[in-house]
Every structure is written in C-alpha cells, then in structure tokens.
C-alpha cells in the first residue's frame, strides 16, 4: 500500500482556503475595513463546517480518528528521541494537538472580533487586546505547524505538504 488516500476533498479545500483567508486577514487586509469582518466570518463558517465534518466526514477526517492524547504525544516524542519512524496514516498525535489548538484559536479570534462590532462591547480595550493576543498566538502556532510539517516530512520521508494537495500519503514499502 504505497499510496493511501487520507485527506478527502473537503479537508483539503478547508485547509487551503483557511490558509488563504487567515493569511489575507492577518497580513494584508486593512483591519478596520468591512472586508476584514467578512473574511473573518468566512473563517468561522469554515471552522464550523470542519467541526461538523469531524463527526460525519470520512475516516481520517473524524475527530474519533485523532482524539487529543497526551500519552500518544509522548509516544511520538519517544519515537523522535529514539530515531524510530512509524508512519501514521492519518493525523499524528502531536499534529492532532496542533489542529485542536488552531481550531479553538480561530474560533476565539472570530468570536472576539465579532463582539468588538457589537454595541455591548463597542470600544472595549480588553476585547481588542484578547483579539490581538489570539491572532499572535495563531501566527506562532502556524509557524510551529509549518516547521513541524517540514521536520516530520524529513524524519518520516513522507511529503506531507503534497499529501495535503493530492490527498494521498506515500506510506512507503510496508
């Protein structure tokens, strides 16, 4: 089974649209513009759809296939420490933790951003602070995510970015 189909079309489109929308909103679009709000809502809708897909989607897209697990993460660290290379078909335990982190952070950004536009919280400094803090956190997490993908691609000799484009993971001879 050299090539295994792991990421369905929804997961791939979700991933790359999120990349484009988040990068656009965090780096390019003027934060006081209407467009910033709409792109933000689009991100929240995307994350919402991903949450639903996590229960009804294909095998490796379901949360049940990558439950948050500290012991699993420790096991993966042990593999790194001993130079063992066991290929995971779906998300790895550490990768799963990052996904939950990113989904939660994006929702927090969306929620705090929406509340800033309501009359109830208009001009609340702490809310803007929270919004910016969450965005910084997301940016750090994205940088870490990319670094981890490069590291794991080299360690496991799987082209992980290509798998997120084509949907197929090269699991090598087994």
């Amino acid at each position, binding site marked *: 089974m050299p090539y295994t189909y792991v990421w369905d079309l929804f997961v791939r489109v979700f991933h790359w649209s999120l990349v484009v929308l988040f990068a656009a909103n965090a780096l390019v679009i003027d934060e006081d513009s209407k467009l910033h709000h709409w792109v933000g809502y689009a991100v929240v809708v995307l994350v919402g759809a991903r949450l639903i897909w996590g229960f009804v989607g294909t095998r490796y897209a379901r949360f049940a296939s990558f439950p948050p697990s500290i012991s699993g993460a420790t096991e993966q*660290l*042990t*593999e*790194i*420490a*001993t*130079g*063992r*290379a*066991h290929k995971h078909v779906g998300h790895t335990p550490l990768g799963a933790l990052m996904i939950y982190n990113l989904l939660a952070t994006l929702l927090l950004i969306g929620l705090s951003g929406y509340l800033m536009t309501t009359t109830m919280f208009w001009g609340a400094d702490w809310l803007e602070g929270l919004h910016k803090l969450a965005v910084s956190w997301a940016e750090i997490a994205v940088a870490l995510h990319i670094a981890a993908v490069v590291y794991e691609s080299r360690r496991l000799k799987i082209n992980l970015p290509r798998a997120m484009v084509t949907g197929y993971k090269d699991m090598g001879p087994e």
Partner: protein
Amino acid sequence: MPYGVMALIAVQVLCAIFFASDIVADLRTYAERGLSLTYLSFEAAATASLCAAILFEVRYVLDLLRRKASLERSASIAAMALSDVIEAHFDQWSLTPSEKDVATFMVKGFSIGEIATLRGSAEGTVKAHLNAIYRKSGTHSRADVLSLIIDTLMNEPASNAA
C-alpha cells in the same frame, strides 16, 4: 513521564517568544524612547540564555524518553543496573540516539529484520547503524559488543553500577 519538565518547557517557550518580540519592538523604537543599546543587549543576552536553557531541557527530555523506551517496563533493580552499564558504554562510544536504540535491540537479541520492523525503517538502515556501532566501539560482531558489556559487569560488583 517527564510531564513536569515538558510543561516547564512550554511555559519557557512562551516567555522566550514574549521577550523576543519585546526586544524586536524595542529595537524599532529605542532611539525615540531613549533606551540605551547596552540595556537592549543585556535583554537580548538574557533571552538568548533562556533559549539555550530550553534547548538543553528539550535534549534532556528526549534523552529521558529514549532511556525509558530502552528500559521499557523492567523495573527490577538488577535490570536497571544492567541498563546503566549498557547505557554507560553507549555514551562512551558516543552513539547517536538512533544507534543507541538499535544497539539496545541488538543487545536484547533481536535480528536485523526484527529491529527494522520495530523501528519502522529499512533493513539497510539498520545495517548502517550496526556498522557505525561496531566502528565506534571497535568491535566486529554482536558477540564482541556483548562480551565488552559482560566484561564490565564481571569486573564491577553490581552494587556499584546501581
């Protein structure tokens, strides 16, 4: 499990990111705010040493995990002492983490094929690791490696090793 150290690393990474971004912000505006470059370089040095400490801790945790993996669940004092003796040899030969893992499996009597399966690597990779182990330890075979270890065990009373 070194969960405490892992949590400590996570907290220190957050602190390091915070200090580093603070330094970057200071560097942009230090002239108009009347900050001295000496002050900034002290800040930078402190942050750099924090980063060094984090790297040291990461290595420490990975080493702990590796040792735990090679010990697996054998909790008896004799097994721990034996493992310490073996570990001391591996350190003395300056084996890499991967080579230590392969050497542990080899000492335990696994075949090349079995080691490859256990480590999720190709047999050729395992053979390359074995060659490195023989070269670094100045031995030529599995039996040579084992006799070196057993030699130390017989010269040293077990209580010393523990």
